[in-house]
Structures are given as C-alpha cells and as structure tokens.
C-alpha cells in the first residue's frame, strides 16, 4: 500500500470535490479517449458467459485511445439503468455494452431513448425497427460450434449416451441442444442426448446434481448451456466422463477430459465494433454471424479426440466457415414424432423460424415443459 499518495493535496482535492461535487461533473478529463462501458450480470471470472465478454473487453483495452470501464454482478432491474447512467455521467462513456439478455427491454431501450447521441449495443436481443436507432443487438450462431462439438462427442462416446445440462427451455438453448445432437448423429446415428433443465442460469448445486445423475445413467460425454460451465466440466472430469465446454475454453479445468467446446469470439467482434464507432461508421443495428464471421469459435481438440473425429469435425467446420453448410435441413422430426422441418426445406442460420425454436429433435431425451 502507498501512504505517500495520501498527500495534503489529495485531501484538499477530496474536500473540494465534496463541496463542488454537484457543480463539477467529472467527464471531459479524458477527452481524447473513447470510453466504452461493459456491464456483466455475473462475475467476470466465471469460466463462462461473463468471462467471454470480459475477454472481449480486455481485447479493447489493448487498443490505443480506448478506455474501458467495467461493472460486474449488476442485476437485471433499474440498477442496470443507473449503472449505464453512472458510466455516462461519471466516466463519460459513449459506447455501452450491457451484455446480459434481461438488460435489453425495458432497461437499455430506456437509456437509448434518454441519451440519443450515445450508442448502446446489446448481446442477444432482437433489435427491430420499432427500437431506437442508436441501439443495436448482436449475437453469434454458436449452434455452429455446438454442431462441431457434437460431432466430436458422437465419435468419442462409448456408451452412445450424451448428456446436456441446460438452464431453460428457450429457443437459444434448444437450438444448441438440437445442433449438438445433429452433429453427434453424423458420427453415430444411434446416439442419444439426455437433457436436464436446471431452471435457471446459475444453479451450481443443481448443475452438479444433473451432471452426476446423467453419469449415473451411463452418459459418458457431457456438455452444457448454463452461465458458468465450471461445475459441469469439473464434475464430469472427476467422475471420469468426457466433456465439451461452452462460452469459453475450459480445458484448464479438465486438461484430460476436455474434448472441445463452443466458444464466443468477442475478442474479435468488440475491436471490430470499436473501430467502426471511432471512425464514425455506423454499427449495424442487427448484427449476427457464426464461424464465418468469426463471432464464434471451436476450442482446440483435447488429447482424447480420435483422428477420425478430428477429420470429420474439421470438414464440417470448414464447410460452415465457407458458408455452404446448413445444420437444420429437412426432413427433421422432433422427439414426439412431429415433422418440424419438412423434407426439402433448408433452414439457414438467418432463418427467423430458428429464433423461435420450441422443440427437441428426435434423438434428444427430454421435454421442453
């Protein structure tokens, strides 16, 4: 600790600011810089959703002329509105990234209307023409990476049973489960994926119970869609099962058991947005992309992945990156026997029908309600 910093001048500064606080807003002190604010719903080091965004923010910190301010564990209430306003009023932020889904409506929309000259970018929301023009939403087709991970899982499983620990039966999650299962079936058409929904985004105890329960039923490869995959990854490895990661690379948590994983690539997207913003170019209001656009990526393969699996996975990854591969291609039947994508129909990534997904495909064991 540094006592030398506690000088008389600092005390005087403090006193002056105490009395003049209302009259002297602190912005303008770093006029030459662009200040970008990041808001996370959980902690920045959760080995998951929030860490992926923080990694993107860390990439911005390396750019010249950019200052990043961050706040973690901000609930999806008016607290996030106040956090945005505080970043604007006290830090001079002009571009904001509230990264959690529940921040979008009404909170970010309200702030975008209140500060029409500033820019707000939201992860996961569905921006529409009715929303403010200075707001935008971006997201990645991470089901592409899940599909590739599914191929690896399908080749790696010995029991033919895969396990998926999921938060809630909402479209984004169902799409991942289905894409993962379709990938696994490319390796072995008889593979099944058993799904357990925990009911919320961060429920470590339930996630551990679900992991154990799945392994007890003979599942030997697991993956998940929860905010922090740490519990699932570590537990699966401890029980001798293999695991595919999610959000970020979790191989450090399970060096042997980690096969591969579906990761966000925000460290590429955020600098891209920052460059557009500082050069005066408009960031598109609705921004989506997958492997091709480098918004998602696949973790490097772990030591247990066979050459055969790598070959097939690389082949599909290359096709997805080139943009000539469709995951949801008919005929597809759900696990209740209804045809959900008719024969001859190809649902490409940008198809709005996929954003409304409400079914689990044949091969998935589980129910959405």
């Amino acid at each position, binding site marked *: *600790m*540094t006592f030398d*910093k*506690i000088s008389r001048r*600092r*005390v005087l500064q*403090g006193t002056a*600011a*105490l009395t003049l*606080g*209302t009259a002297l*807003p*602190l912005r303008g002190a770093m006029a030459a810089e662009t200040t970008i604010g990041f808001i996370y719903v959980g*902690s920045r080091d959760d080995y998951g959703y929030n860490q992926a965004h923080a990694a993107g923010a860390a990439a911005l910190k390396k750019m010249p002329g950019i200052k990043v*301010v*961050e*706040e*973690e*564990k*901000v*609930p*999806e*209430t*008016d*607290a996030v509105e*106040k*956090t945005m*306003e*505080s*970043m604007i*009023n*006290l*830090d001079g932020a002009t571009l904001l990234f509230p990264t959690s*889904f*529940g921040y979008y409506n*009404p909170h970010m929309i309200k702030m975008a209307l209140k500060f029409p000259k500033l820019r707000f970018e939201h992860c*996961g929301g*569905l921006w529409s023409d009715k929303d403010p023009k200075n707001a935008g939403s971006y997201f990645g087709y991470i089901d592409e990476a899940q599909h590739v991970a599914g191929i690896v899982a399908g080749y790696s499983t010995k029991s033919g049973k895969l396990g998926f620990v999921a938060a*809630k*039966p*909402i*479209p*984004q999650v169902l799409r991942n489960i289905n894409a993962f299962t379709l990938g696994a079936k490319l390796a072995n058409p008889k593979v099944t994926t058993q799904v357990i929904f925990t*009911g*919320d985004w961060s429920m470590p105890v339930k996630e551990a119970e679900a992991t154990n329960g799945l392994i007890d039923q003979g599942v030997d490869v697991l993956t998940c869609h929860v905010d922090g995959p740490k519990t699932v990854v570590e537990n699966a490895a401890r029980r001798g099962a293999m695991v595919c990661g999610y959000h970020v690379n979790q191989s450090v948590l399970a060096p042997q058991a980690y096969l591969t994983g579906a990761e966000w690539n925000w460290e590429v997207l955020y600098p891209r947005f920052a460059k557009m913003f500082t050069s005066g170019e408009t960031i598109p209001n609705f921004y989506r992309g997958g492997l091709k656009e480098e918004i998602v990526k696949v973790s490097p393969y772990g030591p247990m992945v066979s050459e055969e699996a790598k070959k097939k996975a690389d082949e599909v990854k290359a096709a997805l990156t080139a943009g000539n591969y469709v995951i949801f291609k008919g005929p597809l039947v759900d696990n209740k026997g209804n045809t959900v994508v008719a024969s001859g129909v190809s649902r490409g990534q940008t198809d709005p029908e996929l*954003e*409304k997904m409400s079914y689990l495909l044949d091969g998935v064991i589980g129910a959405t*309600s």
Partner: protein
Amino acid sequence: MKADADTASTTAGVGEFLRLPPFGRKFGAWAEYIVIPALALLASLVLFGIFVALFGKNPLDLYFFMYQGAFGTWFSWQNTLTRAAPLILTALCTALPAQLGMVIIGGEGALLIGALCATSAALALPAAPPLVVDVAMAFAGMIGGGLWIMLSGALRQYRGVNETISSLLLVYIALAVLNFLVEGPMRDPTSLNKPSTPEIGAANMIGSIPGTDVHWGLAFGIIAAVLSYILIYHTVFGFAARVAGGNIRAAKVVGLSVGKLILIICFLAGAAAGLAGMMEVAAVQGRTNANLAAGYGFAGILVAFLARQNPLAVIPVAVLLGGIGASGGLLQRRLGLPDASVLVLEGTIFVMVLASDSLYGRLGIFKGKS
C-alpha cells in the same frame, strides 16, 4: 381493552423492553440511538478501509469514490434513492412482525407474489383507464403479498410452525410459482428467450417523481414507513402488538387477542413487500419475469435489522444501503475492486451494528437524566 392498555402505558417498566421509545421521551436515550449506530458505521468504514488497503488501494480514494458515487452529485443521489425505494418496503416486511417478536425473512416471496397479482390485475383490465388499473394493481399486489406472509403467521399461530423457516421456504415456493406461470400459462408467446408475461402497457406505467428519475415507490415507501411507525407507537393496536411481542403470556392474561394481532401484522408486512413488487412491475419492468427476483426482499432483512426494527429508522438505513449499492459500481470502475468487496462492507456494517447492541445503556454520557 382500551382502558387496560392506557393504564398499562402509564406504569413504569413496560416500555423498557421496547427497543425505541416514542418521540418526546428522554433526549439522552435518543442521542444514544443515533450516536451508537453512527460509531458502528464509522468503525466499519475504518475496518473496510484497512481491508481495501491490504489490497494496495488507497483508503482515501475509497472514501472519496464512495461519497461521490452515493451522494456526490445530483445524479448520484437519484441513483441512491432509486436503489433505496424497494428496500424501505421490503424492510417493513421484517420490521413489522418483529414488533411481535417474530422473525419473518420471506419478504422476497411476498414481493414476487405481489408482482404476479399486480400484473394479473393489469392484464385483467385491458380497457380500464390507467388510474383505475394502477389502483387495482396496488391493491392486488398488497393483498397477494399480505396473504402470502399471513400464511406464515397462521402456520405459527395455529400449527406451531417456526415463522422464520416457513417464510423462507415460502420464498422458494413463490419463485417456483412465478417461474411456472411466467414460463407456462401467463407467458407472452413473443417473449422468446426471456419468458415473461405480456406487458401491462405503456399507458399504465407509473412515472417518476417530478424533477427526478426516482420512481414513486420511494414516496410510497416513506408513507408506509411513517404509517407503520404511527401504528406501532401511537395507537392502541400497536401498543397491544408491542405488549404481545414483549411477553406473550402477559398479553394473553390481559385479554389481548394474540392470534388476531399476528395475522393482521403479518398481513400488513406482506402488503408492504407486495407493494414493492407492484412498483417494480408498474414503474420499472412493465411485466413480470425472473428479473424481479433481484434480492430486494433479502436486502430488506438487512435494512430492518440495521434499523433495529424501527419503521422510521428503516428510511435512512435504506438510503444508506442504496448509497452503498450506488457507490459499489464506482468502486469497481475506479479502484478495480470486485463486486464482492461491497458485500464485505455490508457484512462488516451488519456485524458492527449488531455488536454495538451491547453498548446501549452502558455509556455513561447518556445516563443521568431518568
């Protein structure tokens, strides 16, 4: 009964087991109730400063940013008051039953049920004028939340179930009910990735207090706190409640209907939290979804205990905790402290205030007048 109560109030000693005397009694005792918590607060700030210094941060920076983030600018004040608004109401959910000696910690559940009832009321009145809708929402929220906590009171009165445990477990039931309804029967089919009820409509939203960004929940909270104070300290009903809280057998001997007191007080407590839930819907979220389970109910327990269960003291304590929450963001951004550091401060304050309880009546400077 009124005559009994009046006689009792004049006898010495009855007031001794009550935490706070009414206005107008000994000045010394009042000073004690201000100086001791202030000392506890100061001590916790010093301890927190040392804690932060251990991580290589300058404690003076810390105090400056805390002040700036919470009270240093007009914006900071609004930030603080916005965060304080729901805490006043949820704190009453713990502070009111405490007068009866009950420890209710289920304000979060009453808030969620209140929000659900209020949303249902708004959705059931699609064509009514906004004022009617808002009044209906407020009543629905208060009745829903009130009945929810009354359930804990009834379980205690008629079945001997510990009200602390039952009210806590009812929080999880309330959350399950909310998730079930929001993801099932009440779900707006267009809420794809965030299951929510339909919106109550922009016209029905309650705006801010004029000239500020703070929603009306703050005003309702202050009104509810003042009314609670009057009820507890200046009515026969409140006196009866305090007698029952002090000695339940004595209360029964003098003929007080303890069961009725428990049910009514629990209802009022739950109604306060239910109103907080209604305000979250009508002033902030515009609909019900899992966002409402933000922990306001649990933070309210902390506020009530720090306020020593006094309904009036709940107001400044809620503002203080709102301020800590508001400055927490600035501490993260300017000092690079993790979010958990604010929890360390809150925990330190909590322990210091509870520990300072032992100082009451022992500091010589406050003695000598009675």
